[in-house]
């Protein structure tokens, strides 16, 4: 992976074929976090005044995820290899980077939830079942791409 800063918060990310296939496989998993995962208030102390708003929030979460899913399909289709067929150059501005960071975080958090919300030390010390490996991979690789994009925005 190569990153080329262009100024004004814009940058290019150049990926080889394997790196692009990995990123494509990753973002295609969106959404991973259930749309109704969050609540306005602490779950053990729900505020009756906010019940309607909470219901609306969950509903709008589904709409937001459906919109993001369509955007991801269009984004993947818009990216083509360079003439050498060996490099994929992806152009980012701050809003596009923020968009992808949010998507990657949905995948990272959703993977973590489906693994049972392990503590950080359990991630390295626990004996994971083979069927969990793809989820662990998606969680770690989405975190890696997030870190790269966040550094480019700093």
């Amino acid at each position, binding site marked *: 992976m190569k990153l080329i800063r262009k100024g004004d918060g814009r940058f290019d990310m150049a990926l080889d074929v394997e790196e692009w296939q990995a990123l494509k496989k990753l973002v295609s998993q969106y959404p991973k976090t259930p749309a109704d995962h*969050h*609540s306005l208030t602490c779950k053990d102390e729900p505020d009756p005044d906010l019940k309607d708003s909470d219901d609306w929030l969950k509903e709008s979460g589904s709409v937001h995820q459906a919109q993001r899913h369509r955007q991801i399909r269009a984004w993947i289709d818009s990216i083509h290899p360079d003439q050498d067929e060996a490099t994929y150059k992806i152009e980012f501005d701050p809003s596009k980077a*923020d968009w992808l*960071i*949010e998507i990657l*975080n949905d995948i990272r958090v959703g993977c973590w939830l489906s693994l049972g919300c392990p503590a*950080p030390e359990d991630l390295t010390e626990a004996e994971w079942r083979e069927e969990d490996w793809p989820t662990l991979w998606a969680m770690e690789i989405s975190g890696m791409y997030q870190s790269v994009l966040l550094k480019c925005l700093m």
Partner: protein
Amino acid sequence: MFVNAGPMVLPGIDPRSDQQTKEFLDSGYLVICWDDPINLMDYVTHVFQKVFGWNRAKAEHHMMEVHQQGKSLLTRASMETAEHYVHQLHRYNLHATMEKAE
């Protein structure tokens, strides 16, 4: 005969706008962000900057509060404004809630 000469002090206009007054009277909700072991520290800082428009130093201060103390009080606002902020934080998958201020 009693002659009503009218009030000594005439009603005036409050210089605050209606919106400011509503916000002032209804600023009764706290927006809180809670720690979790999955969101990256740089990511939390980034989200605070995006949602609240804070500079990096202020966003990092609140991120460190979340990390070290388990939660951070991000702002106090009216119900509608607090809902808006919590909604935005949820879109970024941060663990945020709102509660009535005591």
